[in-house]
């Protein structure tokens, strides 16, 4: 479904964020991406939907090279790929409903959406999405009145509005406490299993990766240093671990 080939990314200030990363994602996978902060996880996810322009390499989405397509075509691709963020990235002053509906903008004719008009079907879809993440009763609250976990659920509902084939989740639980982490990842897992939405999710904690991913890739200083299935993660040796997380890292939280 998604193929990343020899992807490299150099920021304008010269920081090399990704070096020659290649991997493939099959439909229905829950791909965990592990690595330290600054290892390039976020950059990788943002290169996939071209929020960041990669410097080299190819991104192939459903057999089509999308690395250089123009803005209008890119929008068509982006609306098939939902995204969930570490900081939720909700518009705090807008209502939960508007935040969720804004996930539908890629499908709405611009002129209508500019005056805040969404079709009945879109509104129904938004209610359904909110129900799915269990916060339909908060639809008219302002986004910043919600707790962190609830905000992230709004974020997921917004991604759901795109009726996506794939969801990119950039550290979706890093700003939440561990109990909520399972709840949020549980929703992603549900979408993955029930709706067959492919999920790419970057995570900090190995136990979370073990619990939720079907496959894992590991990044270190922008390089792909690990790739393996669920079993491989469980059997990561200390030396392997240090390869991914660096010499000074300590294992922690592994069951």
């Amino acid at each position: 479904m998604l193929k990343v080939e020899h992807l490299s990314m150099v920021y304008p200030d010269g920081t090399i964020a990704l070096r020659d990363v290649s991997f493939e994602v099959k439909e229905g996978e829950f791909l965990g991406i592990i690595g330290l902060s600054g290892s390039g996880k976020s950059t990788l996810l943002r290169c996939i939907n071209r929020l960041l322009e990669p410097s080299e390499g190819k991104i192939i989405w459903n057999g089509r090279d999308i690395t250089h397509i123009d803005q209008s075509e890119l929008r068509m691709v982006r609306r098939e790929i939902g995204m969930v963020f570490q900081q939720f990235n909700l518009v705090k002053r807008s209502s939960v409903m508007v935040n969720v509906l804004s996930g539908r903008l890629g499908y709405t004719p611009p002129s209508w959406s500019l005056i805040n008009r969404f079709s009945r079907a879109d509104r129904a879809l938004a209610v359904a999405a909110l129900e799915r993440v269990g916060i339909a009763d908060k639809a008219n609250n302002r986004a910043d009145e919600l707790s962190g976990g609830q905000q992230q659920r709004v974020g997921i509902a917004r991604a759901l509005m795109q009726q996506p084939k794939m969801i990119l989740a950039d550290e979706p639980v890093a700003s939440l406490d561990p109990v909520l982490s399972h709840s949020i990842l549980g929703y992603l897992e549900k979408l993955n299993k029930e709706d067959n939405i492919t999920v790419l999710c970057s995570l900090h904690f190995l136990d979370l990766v073990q619990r939720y991913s079907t496959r894992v890739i590991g990044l270190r200083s922008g390089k792909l240093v690990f790739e393996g299935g669920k079993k491989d993660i469980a059997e990561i040796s200390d030396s392997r671990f240090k390869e991914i997380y660096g010499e000074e890292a300590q294992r922690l939280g592994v069951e």
Partner: protein
Amino acid sequence: MTKGIAAPRPSLLHGILSLLVPGLGQFVVGARGRGSAIFASVVVLGGLSAWTISQKARFPDFSLSFVIFAKLVFATGLLLLFLVALRALVSRFILRDASLEAFSAYGMGILYFLALVVAGNQILATAGSAEQLAFVFGGTALFAAGSLAALWLWNVADAARIGGAGLGGHLPSLALPILLVCLLVFSLGYNITRVDLPKAITEYQDISILLPRILWPWRAAFAYDQEVVEETQLIQAPCPDGAIGPPSNEPQAGEPWISATPTCGEVGVRAITGGFEPGTLLTITGGGFVPGQTVNILWKNPIGNAFRPRGVGETEILINENGEFTSQLNIPDVVIPEATASGDQIHTLVVRQEDVEVFGWRFSDDMKLALVGMLETIMMGLMATFFGMILAFPISFLAARNLMAPIVSPLNGIVGGIVGLVAGIWLGSELAGRAAEALGGLANAPIQIFLIGAVLVIGLGYAGLTLAGRLFALMLERLGGAANDTISAILLAAMIAVPGYFLGRGFSRGVMSIVQGADIAAINEQNFAYAGAILLAVLTLLYAFRNRGGRGIPIGSIIYTTTRTILNILRSVEALIYAIIFAIWVGLGPFAGMLALTLHTVASLAKLYSEAIESIEPGPLEALNATGATRLQTIVYAVIPQILPPAISFTVYRWDINVRMSTIIGFVGGGGIGFIMLQWQRLYQWELVGIAVWLIAITVATLDYVSAEIRERTI
């Protein structure tokens, strides 16, 4: 003050270098920035001081004042050196320990200052005639020179110290020289702004009469109902033999009356030589008038002309508490015209009381005028804010770096876009012209035509920009390969050549005609125009080829920079100055003021809005981008909700400023209260000026409060 145990020996060489050229010693040691700063300060401030003296004294040439100032610096420098030496001697021989200091650096400073005050005239005398110099620039030049001398000497000491110690340690503090520079600038400022404190005290009386009227002007704000009572008594004059004159009036009960005796007499005679013989003395009594107020006595001659008799008795009489009065009056000199000189001459004595009813007050016409002016002012501010807000809002997006910087367009898109934009605007204005004709001309339906025109021009321009950009890119894609980049580059160069042509022509008209004279420049005008076109075209080509295959042209950044520059220029000119221009353009009155304020408001609100946009959280923007929303959609859903509170706050604040500005914009013909106030001021109607001042103060203070409240609530 801490003293190093082994303080390095100061370097004489560097000290001398800095004595000759300030800052040179430091520069040689390697403290380049410090050296240059010292040099620049001494040269600029010294030059400015000398120039100020020459301007004040109206010396015919600059060098004279320069010499005088140099002498002053030298003299004060010697004074300071003397004090420094004194301090060293006292430390050495009286305290008998070189490491002890006679007094601190601050003590030195105070001593130096006192010495300048005490020996001021003597020092001035060394530079020129003390009286003349003192008259021209008082003590300020002395202190300017003294500060400069101290700065210079500090610089020598500093160079010697740095030269001895090298750059290894950290450099000595700059607090002292900065203080000296401030002192110097202060003395110059004191001189240039002509501070004259005694004047503020001795000439207070000039304002003391006006001030109460300005501060408490309300008498002029009201008018009162008046009742005029006029009672008459007929008098015959001259009085022929046997005539008895008209009858004397009888007293009346309950209503005003007057009576006079006798009622027949002789008129006064004014001789050509200047003597005056008054006429018969009349005794006037009256009653039934309003007590406590005055009555006026008038004389009406036989043909009915009334005047106030002069020099024949009281004409303004106070009524007693019973409403009565008694007075005496000689019959004035009345020239009786020949034509009517026959028969009995019957004059009329008039007693007139203007009864002012205090409780029947209403606003005076002037007050009404002031209120109308104030309303005009408030509305002017309001309209300017409204239009400014509407125009500034879209512009602010172009001036927001975070929105514009990511916009990068391939060359093809830009070429097509420019063509489309120009074509769209042209088409839009053509259609707007047709629409205007259909609606019966601009004068007939101005608002409709403006709105239709704006919609057509902006809409079609935007449509052209996007459509043509895409179309052209598609067309070239068909051609494929490297060819399309080349074609776009050439087309872009050709397009840029057009403004290049006009820039070249402008250069010829604006610069070359000044340098060469208008005639020669006119001959070469075409050449410059073509040169400009070719130059810009070539530069564009070079740029396009260098960026070939890159990420495209950072058109967003280019638009951002251009917009910001224009806004900055517009904002740096005050609305008052725009008002001068618009008052000529559209005539005196509030419209000119409103336009001026609008222009300034657009510039400043656009900047404030764009700063609000720049400080939004980028997260939601990114999130919406990721959903596949268009740029306009992300703006509506992610940007506007975030900037709304600060934008409201800024707008209200600007409204506050605009009303404040519009009170004085009338001074240059912009209408409103200022316009009226200026006229009153020129007529020396100080009470009316006072009313205007009060109204302005009340309005601005109210608005200040209201706007603060609104702003507090929106954030």
